[in-house]
């Protein structure tokens, strides 16, 4: 297979695996945030913030994939 093809697969894996990892991390946080919000809507802001923290790892994946594709 051409090198370009391998690079594209690598870029896809970087985003995809990071997404799965973030999803697994978020399941507990999201459930807890929704639980807290159901009891007290005042937790909305903090709950949302905590839930998206694992998303940062996806950004790393995205950056890696951009580097692979356009460097």
């Amino acid at each position: 297979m051409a090198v370009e093809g391998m690079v594209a697969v690598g870029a896809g894996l970087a985003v995809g695996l990071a997404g799965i990892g973030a999803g697994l991390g978020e399941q507990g946080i999201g459930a807890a945030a929704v639980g807290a919000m159901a009891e007290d809507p005042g937790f909305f802001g903090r709950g949302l913030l905590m839930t998206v923290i694992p998303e940062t790892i996806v950004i790393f994946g995205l950056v890696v994939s951009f580097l692979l594709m356009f460097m």
Partner: protein
Amino acid sequence: MISKIIKRTKISEWAYIVARVKVMKRKLIPIEDYNKLLNMDLNEIARYLEETEYKKEIDELAFRYSGVNLIDHALSLNLSRIYSKLIRISKGLPKDLIVLYLRKWDFWNIKNILRGKMFGFSNEEIEATLVPAGEFDGEFFKTLLAKESIEEIVNAFKGKPFYSILEKILHGARLSDVEDELDKFYYTSIAGLSAESLDSKYFIDFIRMEIDIVNMKTIIRLKKEGVPAEEIIPKIIPYGYQLTEDEARKLAAMEMEEIYKAIENYWFVKDLKEALMTQPISKIENALTRIWAERMIKKASNYPLSILPVLSYMLLKKIEVDNLRILARGKESGMSVEDIREQMVIV
């Protein structure tokens, strides 16, 4: 691997219920407020409760009851609603465990109905003590209350595993013995289960610790009343956490001074030893309940993603309702602030 990932998704079931319960726990009456409450009269207490989680129940019942009866009914109703809510908002294993724990209230209600009927209390008085939170709902207990004879009430449970215990009343057994057997049935049916996972082990250990506390209370109360060991031993519940059945039996046969020495190494003994010799029974029982609750709060924070935070909330809610009831009843009967404070368990 996939099955492992699917299994791990159970974390979200715990996270959801524990987060909700933690927010609910913040709404419990803070310790500082008890000092204020102790200096209020009945109407002020009712008004205070109207500003808390009990508002809905007080408003709902205010046209039917007043004074201490209003507070009593509102507290029972709120407790059963909170328990039903916990069942409603949980799912999977957390729900199963909560339902299992709340079966305790079925037995509580059955005992109250039988006792109330036997001693001629009015249906309304009995109803105020009921907390329909377990397998049977409020409607079921209302139909039980409407029944005339004890026999009809007992027969309503035909086919249930504890029917053979209830049936003994019809054959002339003492009510107190039947009540003890019902308690024993409840505890052994849970504590006798083998833990399939770590989550259910936490739950079973909780029940076994509760058995320790119940056994210890039974032994101390009956010992102080001078009941002979032969009568205490049948009341002991097996499957204790640290206090095994054999050890509990040995304690039952000892004198108070020996018990004082023998229980030295048990988990519930903290702060209790001094109280044991000099204090009245009610204070010792309160001390045990407090030690129990404090231990649970600590354990719950050590194992946040488990059933323990939910159980510790249920325990604290029950203690709060009991405290408020003692407060209302004490104020009505004109007890002094100090006497009421001594009866309450403030954790």
